[in-house]
């Protein structure tokens, strides 16, 4: 209905799903290790009862979170869209909580590409955009696309609006 007319169309790289899955897996592993250690300590030194309950609660939430973290990357990829033209940057993401942003090019202050070890493995980059009022990130674009987009945004953002 409303989104069809002017919604952004460009998508992220497909490898983004893999990157997110791997990073989520690592995060979950670390998380579960910490919880495991805490549970062991709780058992070993017989801490107060309520601490045990809280730990069990945290474990349950963590398990649910882990399950969700294996579904989320697919949904995230499926629904992430962006677009740039001479005047506006558009970002749209999320299924359960959909967010659609419209940023004028003239208000963009800086744009940068970033690459962590996981992104580098798949030849991807993320773009972070700072505006006068907030900051935005486009995660996981192929490196050449990312650099092109960065330069394009930088070029458009060079045009300055008379501030008043």
């Amino acid at each position, binding site marked *: *209905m*409303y*989104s069809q*007319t*002017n919604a952004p169309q460009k998508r992220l790289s497909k490898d983004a799903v893999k990157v997110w899955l791997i990073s989520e897996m690592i995060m979950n592993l670390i998380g579960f290790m910490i919880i495991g250690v805490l549970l062991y300590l709780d058992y070993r030194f017989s801490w107060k009862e309520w601490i045990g309950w809280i730990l069990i609660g945290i474990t349950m939430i963590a398990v649910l979170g882990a399950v969700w973290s294996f579904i989320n990357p697919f949904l995230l990829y499926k629904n992430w869209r962006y677009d740039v033209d001479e*005047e*506006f940057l558009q970002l749209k993401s999320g299924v*359960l*909580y*959909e*967010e*659609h*942003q*419209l*940023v*004028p090019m*003239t*208000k963009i202050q800086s744009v940068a590409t970033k690459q962590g070890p996981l992104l580098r493995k798949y030849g991807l980059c993320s773009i972070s955009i700072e*505006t*006068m*009022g*907030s900051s935005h990130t486009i995660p996981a674009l192929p490196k050449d696309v990312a650099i092109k987009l960065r330069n394009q945004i930088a070029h458009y953002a060079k*045009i*300055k*609006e*008379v*501030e*008043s």
Partner: protein
Amino acid sequence: MTKTKRYHPLLILFNLWKLVKNSIFFVIYLFVIKADSESNFVIYGRIIFFLAFGITLVSIILKWFTHKYELDDRSFHLYKGFLSKSERTIPFSKIQNVNRHTSLLHRIFKVTSTNFETGMRGEEAAVKFEVISQIEADRIEAHITSASRHELTTINSNNDNIELSSKMDTENANSNRTIHFKPTKSDILKASFTSLSFFILFPLIGSFYFKINEIFHVEEEVEGIFMSIMSSGWMMTIIIIVLVIISATFGIVRTFLKYGKYQISSDHDRIYITKGVIEETTFSISKEKVQAIEIKQSLMKRLLGLAEVKLTSAGSLSSGEDTLEINSLYPFLPVKRAYKMVSEILPSYEVTTKMTRLPRKSLWVRLFKPSWIWIIATAVLFYFKPSILKVEQAWWILSAVLFILIAVSRLLDFCNTRYILNDQFIQFKTGSLTTSLFVSKRDKIIEVKVTRNIVQQMVGLASIGTINRAKPVHHAGVDDVPLELAASLYQWYMKRRNEIKVE
């Protein structure tokens, strides 16, 4: 264009005064309380104190000799540094608002302090004159106004499609300020009533009593006096009457000192808000730099038909030590007067009273939205089950009361919420007990967003949000508006391209 100048020589005196004020605590501690102490800590403390005092003293004098300023047609040039020198250039066009603060000490010497605030982040965001003669401050302000006006007209003449009309007749704009508002006696009475300053005396007396009690332990005597007063009826009546009179006078005097010499005026380019009887504060902003208007009404003000109008600026709003809300037009304006004043001083803004209400379905969405506060509070109450006043069931009564309060506040919020996209203006009103009406222009909004959670997606609603320049950035928005509005918000914002002027 002016020559490079040093700051006002009285700056040394003012800084000395500040230094003395800051060192009083150390002096009392090191030389009065610990006067007889021979411990290393105190002895070294004294040495360090003398060193610090001496260094600050020298640096104050050096600073005055090395800090200089200069104005040309376009910008401020600030020079400082003794060994490593720095020069800072701040174009007039970046200045968002001017805050002037005249403390009692300033008044004695017929000087003032002025901050020219920019929208930049960080410590050096403002051009500060801590002490400056009033004539010089006026001169600089006039210089900036005329310079930036000149610049604007040149930009305008480069572009063709801009309404020049409003800026053409600016030659004789100086000095003909119109005064829009000065509070009368009844305004001040109303203000002191609305701000409940009648009651301010009681907490003051209370805290005074506790402080005295801490030192002298007068509790028993006071209780005795209190009992003897309570026992005689006419004595109590007299004391209550006297207290009420004192309290009311105190409240009115306090309100008068704060809002007595309020004055809102404007000339062709700028708006000036002056206030304060003893310490005078002036806030002035160029009309084009007003980022948004906010009209706020607390419950008390709504009952009395008063409102507060605030102008949002991208520059900082604090002046010196006190962070009073200097950007507010008189906080106790009658509503109609407030609307009229906005159209008087900001002719380029248009505030309409015709706004759209939320659809019925957003009330249901709001009512059924889980309230985290209620869930957590109920969980805590359920766990502890406290009995209040020996009532065992207190926990679920409290929970139910909280639930009703939340529901009522949501209902009120729903009833108060209105919105409209009116030509190049966006306008919305939100709030349950305290309402706030937000008005901004398309070219002043720096970002828009639309969000929809899962329930909103199912019933076809959305939340809209805008960001405006301010310090810190101003987020505004309405929840649960129809999806059509969200779509038209995009269309509306896209039209921004026709309005902005490109350098």
